[in-house]
């Protein structure tokens, strides 16, 4: 919905933020990989704290934003499916084990793993501007919550599908609102740790 003149620059910027181009990013500095991992770990930790402690004060029928999922989406958008998937698995595992979680461990790990993978594929297949990123967030939020809900239906049934759908859709709306704040921060942080994005 942006003016046509601004579209190319946006697209270009997302590409810059996202893909590291050429072998230089890998041969360059091996420490950067660790730095990226540490950055995502930090982002996930902060997101988890906000998600469990701050946003319950502003919830809608108990549904709040899934900030950890947003960090994973941003990681996937920035670094591709491989990075996104591994980040998603680790973040999901944390979400599964950190209090007050009480569901079977591995459910969020599986869900966020898929989210990271899909977000990474979105970057490769349809590198678009803000609209594309928001569409990716919406799709990933729906996908992640749905996978979590479905594993729940398999492991311990008891919640009706209409209830699930309502909660999942409310979650998508929350995530879209919060994506505007979370995703750019993570994208920028990961871009700063990427030698191929030269900003001289």
């Amino acid at each position, binding site marked *: 919905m942006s003016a046509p003149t601004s579209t190319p620059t946006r697209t270009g910027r997302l590409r810059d933020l996202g893909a590291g181009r050429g072998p230089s990013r890998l041969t360059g500095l091996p420490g950067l990989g660790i730095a990226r991992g540490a950055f995502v770990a930090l982002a996930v930790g902060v997101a988890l704290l906000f998600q*469990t402690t701050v946003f319950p004060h502003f919830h809608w*029928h108990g549904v709040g934003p899934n900030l950890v999922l947003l960090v994973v989406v941003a990681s996937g958008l920035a*670094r591709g499916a*491989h990075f996104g998937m591994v980040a998603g*698995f680790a973040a999901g595992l944390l979400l*599964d084990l950190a209090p*007050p979680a009480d569901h079977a*461990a591995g*459910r969020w790990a599986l869900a966020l793993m898929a989210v990271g993978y899909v977000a*990474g594929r979105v970057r490769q297949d349809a590198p678009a501007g803000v609209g594309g990123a928001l569409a990716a967030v919406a799709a990933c939020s729906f996908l992640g919550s749905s996978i979590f809900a479905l594993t729940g239906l398999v492991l311990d049934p008891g919640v009706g599908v209409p209830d699930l759908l309502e909660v999942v859709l409310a979650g998508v709306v929350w995530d879209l609102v919060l994506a505007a704040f979370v995703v750019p921060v993570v994208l920028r942080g990961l871009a700063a740790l990427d030698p191929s994005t030269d900003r001289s």
Partner: protein
Amino acid sequence: MRSFRQRRFGHARSEGEGSQPGTPPRSLVLALVLACASLMVLDQSGSVLDPARRAVGEVVGPAQSVTADVVRPIVEFPDRLERQDQLRADLAALEAENDDLRSKVRTSGLDRNRLAEYDGLTSAAEEIGAALVPARVIGIGASQSFSSTVTIDAGSDSGITPDLTVVNNDGLVGRVLRVTSTTATVLLIVDPDSAVGARVADDMELGFLTGRGDLGGDARLDLELVDQTVVPHKNDVVVTWGSSQGQSPYVSGVPVGEVVSVYSSVRETSQRAVVDPFVDFAALDLVGVVVPSGTRSDRAVIEADGSLR
């Protein structure tokens, strides 16, 4: 490791040619999916992962505690502004209500008897010999997780162990699932997995309360009575049945909620009642964990007789 590297290099090179960069190797996808599946199976079948949960909790718990302390004044600030005027109005309303109640107690013998019964209940509560460890809610699981659990900022250091009853000034909140040294995870009674032995206070009938999973103001519990010929009445108060010693989950005599509607299921030949819990689960903050009297704790404990220790 080697193949991993090769792939990374391969992608980097091929990225310019528009193939699929950064795609994870199939073996990694498979390994992670299998890891998730085995974690689920392990966790579902036993308590193998409890040490891992505890370890994560030891790290995350204090961080949640600090965050909650920072956030609380900010969140409560609008309340404080409203409170001034509201308190004055409340005071007037309560004074009027108090006068009204007082006159009713004086005039009605029935009410006086009731009062005596309540006194008896209170003394019974004292006889349990239970004490309360105060705690604040520092983390709430989102509804997207479909389980209603919260973290409180008191753990094994404060004398809290799994299966203890958690209450607040309105009534029953839930029970402790697991503890770390500084935090505890509480399963709320509105969780679908929660089952509370309950008693209809008016006719002493026993039953079970199960949650429905929603947290908000319209949170409801389902009550199924053991004796299926008994029909609970609207506005009947439901209390916990539990053990008096507080050994098993839920001490007895804690008010849970009141019956709002009753319906009979012909197919299941049973009476079901819907109970509105007294506790507002959407706005949980200060709670008390019922511990045996004399429990060693790192914070002040409210004893059964109301004294602070």
